């Protein structure tokens, strides 16, 4: 257990607080709370704290670090779960493959950054945690570079309610949820660049995120499903929107061996799937070998939803403006069940206004390109009214059959039939893959050695992003097919 003297301090603090509240007449409401940030007081130059030379544990080094400092970790296996609450520190391993945080399936998160802005974590491995390898929550500014996360019980690399971020040159595998996740943010102002995600339930997942959110130059392979951002009212900031997926290689996401949550079993066999996503751009991705669809735009029906799907006039509401909005239960007259299929208060999240451009999609068993919905609630919303568009894609099969001519981008469709070759959504949804044994994540393959950052021992600290990423989408070409695939 870490911080033994801390216990006493907390006890003291508790007693003081107690006395202050119970008998103090006028509450001087800011006594103990913000005492933690001695940050601003720091003057002089940033320092490097070496682990274990200066501090025996990563946690002690992190606790001693001031904004601007570098915690530099030597080779070793560290059975620690590290909490970070100081802004603008950098935590770096000297060797990505040999600086290993190991939760031994007992600890929850490798590194957890809580409401600390601008924290950079780089060049190390986190494995065998029951929740997440690397985790940022409630932060403004974050970067994870040259990270390896594998065999973690929820997510590999996870950013929640976090903005202005970058995850690059990293690897995530063996998580039943997603290898990489960015959720509950709009605008997210975040970039996922040059990562590899494999043997997960989902390669990428992001619930209710988007807005200057870019996923580029990355590989999603051998997951149960590849890139799967989605909407839902079970978390804040719906819908998922404005995620840009460009220049990725997405293939063979059909694994029956990978760990999986139920959603992954349902999404299994799809390359890029947008359940209830709106205004996303999917461009110049190389997508091949999928048991179902290469790129699929489908609804996400939410049973016993917390809220109705917002109208398009509210899709640009910043996430920050929704935090203090009370969401009362949906009046029972405003939503209903679907006899024999969907129970309780059903809200249908449809995929709207997505642009699917210039992708190369091949060898998909159901369809290379697909869009579909079902008007189960009788709202008159059918597939042809969703305003999704498809242009410049290279593919063989689509559902509906003539999709690219029916719904081209920035042009008028040919007026053909949306019923011919329509996606059999009920059939697909009704046959999810079989669940793997419990705790399959604990035995997923060890990754090969991953590339190190340059000059980890001497490289200067590069701060985390402070604003939207600058990505030149036009400069990202369709990737070439990797050798041996």
């Amino acid at each position, binding site marked *: *257990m870490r*911080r033994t003297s*801390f*216990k006493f301090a*907390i006890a003291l*603090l*508790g007693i003081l*607080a*107690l006395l202050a*509240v*119970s*008998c103090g007449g006028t509450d001087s*409401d*800011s006594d103990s*709370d913000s005492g933690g940030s001695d940050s601003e007081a720091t003057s002089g130059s940033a320092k490097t704290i070496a682990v274990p030379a200066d501090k025996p544990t990563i946690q002690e080094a992190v606790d001693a670090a001031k904004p601007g400092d570098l915690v530099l970790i030597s080779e070793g296996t560290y059975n620690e779960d590290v*909490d970070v*609450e100081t802004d603008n520190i950098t935590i770096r391993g000297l060797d990505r493959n040999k600086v290993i945080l190991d939760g031994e399936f*007992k600890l*929850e998160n490798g590194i*957890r950054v*809580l*409401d600390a802005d601008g924290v950079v974590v780089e060049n190390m491995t986190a494995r065998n945690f*029951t*929740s997440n390898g690397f985790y940022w*929550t*409630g932060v403004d500014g974050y970067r994870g570079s040259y990270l390896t996360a594998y065999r973690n019980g929820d997510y590999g690399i996870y950013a*929640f*309610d976090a903005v202005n971020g970058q995850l690059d040159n990293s690897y995530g595998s063996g998580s039943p949820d997603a290898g990489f996740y960015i959720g*509950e943010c709009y605008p997210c102002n975040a970039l996922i660049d040059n990562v590899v995600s494999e043997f997960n339930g989902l390669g990428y997942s992001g619930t209710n995120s988007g807005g200057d959110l870019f996923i580029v130059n990355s590989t999603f392979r051998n997951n149960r499903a590849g890139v799967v951002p989605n909407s839902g*009212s*079970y*978390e*804040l*900031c*719906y819908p998922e929107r404005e995620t840009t997926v460009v220049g990725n290689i997405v293939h063979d996401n059909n694994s029956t061996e990978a760990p999986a*949550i*139920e*959603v992954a*079993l*349902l999404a299994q066999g799809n390359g890029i799937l947008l359940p209830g996503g709106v205004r996303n751009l999917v461009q110049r991705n190389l997508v091949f070998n999928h048991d179902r669809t290469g790129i699929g735009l489908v609804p996400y029906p939410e*049973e*016993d*939803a*917390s*809220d109705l799907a917002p109208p398009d006039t509210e899709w640009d509401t910043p996430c920050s403006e929704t935090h203090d909005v*009370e*969401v*009362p*239960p*949906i009046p029972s007259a405003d939503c209903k069940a679907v006899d024999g*299929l*969907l*129970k*309780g*208060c059903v809200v249908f999240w449809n995929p709207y206004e997505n642009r699917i451009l210039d992708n190369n999609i091949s060898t998909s068993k159901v369809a290379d390109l697909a869009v579909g919905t079902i008007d189960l609630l009788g709202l008159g919303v059918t597939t042809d009214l969703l305003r999704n568009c498809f242009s410049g894609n290279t593919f063989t099969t689509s559902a509906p059959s003539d999709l690219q001519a029916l719904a081209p981008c920035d042009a008028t469709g040919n007026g053909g039939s949306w019923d011919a070759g329509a996606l059999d959504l*009920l059939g697909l*949804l*009704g*046959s*999810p893959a079989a669940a793997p044994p419990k705790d399959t994540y604990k035995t997923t393959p060890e990754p090969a050695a991953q590339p190190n950052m340059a000059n980890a021992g001497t490289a200067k600290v590069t701060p985390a992003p402070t604003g939207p990423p600058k990505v030149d989408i036009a400069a990202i070409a369709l990737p070439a097919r990797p050798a041996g695939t």
Partner: protein
Amino acid sequence: MSFRFLGPRAQIAAVLLFSGSAILLGACATTDASTESGAKDSAQLSPLSPARHIGPQGQVGQVVTDCGYSHSAADDPIVFPGQPGMSHEHDFFGNTSTNADSTTAALLKGATTCQKQLDTAAYWAPQLRDHGQAVVPVKSVAYYRAAPGVDPKNVVPYPEGLHIIAGDMTATEPLSPDLAGWACGVSSAHDAAPPQCPNSAPLRAVMTFPDCWDGVNTDSKNHKSHMVNSFEGLCPKSHPVHVPQLTFAVAYPISGTGHDLTLASGSTYGIHADFINSWDQEGLANEIRLCLNRDVVCGLSSNRDEDPLFGPK
């Protein structure tokens, strides 16, 4: 705040509770002359039903701990300490050693079913029965949050060994579902009786514990009067210490039709839960400080591990 569910018996209980609170006021050396109106203030400040967080998660800081089902026994270390077999049948979660003889010291040494290994707290709820047969719960989920309106910076950890009860085991009429009720999955819409739930969001019992502590006692004769609910973000002077609002949910493998549900304690209106703070105390203090005081979402509970939509029934 709604009192519409309070029956006459509950109102009597409320009066008893509040007069108890008024006595405790004496413990604090305040000199303001508010004693006359104190009882009234106190009544207003400690409603029997908690203010509850509703709507999607992610709006306020929270600590979420998932704990598997541990065991069942006719034991209740709060109501019938040292008297094994005296209680109705309970399902226990978290600490694996909980029994009628449990002491806080013993629990602190116990193992846990919780994913968060620092959570060695004892949680229990009455056994659910379907057509008279025991239903083995899937798991429990404990949410620790500042209650609505409470300044999260003011929340301090529970004292070691604090005993709390949520709900009323003797209820035979609907209580406020804000206090103790039933839901489908993580939905925050609660009913006083179990609703029919979909496979993708099966049945949960959800109980919300009071969040204002008297600052002195870790238990009380009726096991309730040392704790009350906050009102509009404030704790009454009788119970001045803001502790986390614990919402405890038990997930059952119950969905669809054809169920006949009762509790080992009787009517499903009487759903209730018990909690003993036998967390790793340093670990709990750390979570409260990092997640609640800083208003950070440190975890979520989702329906993601439930059966899929449209799936084979």
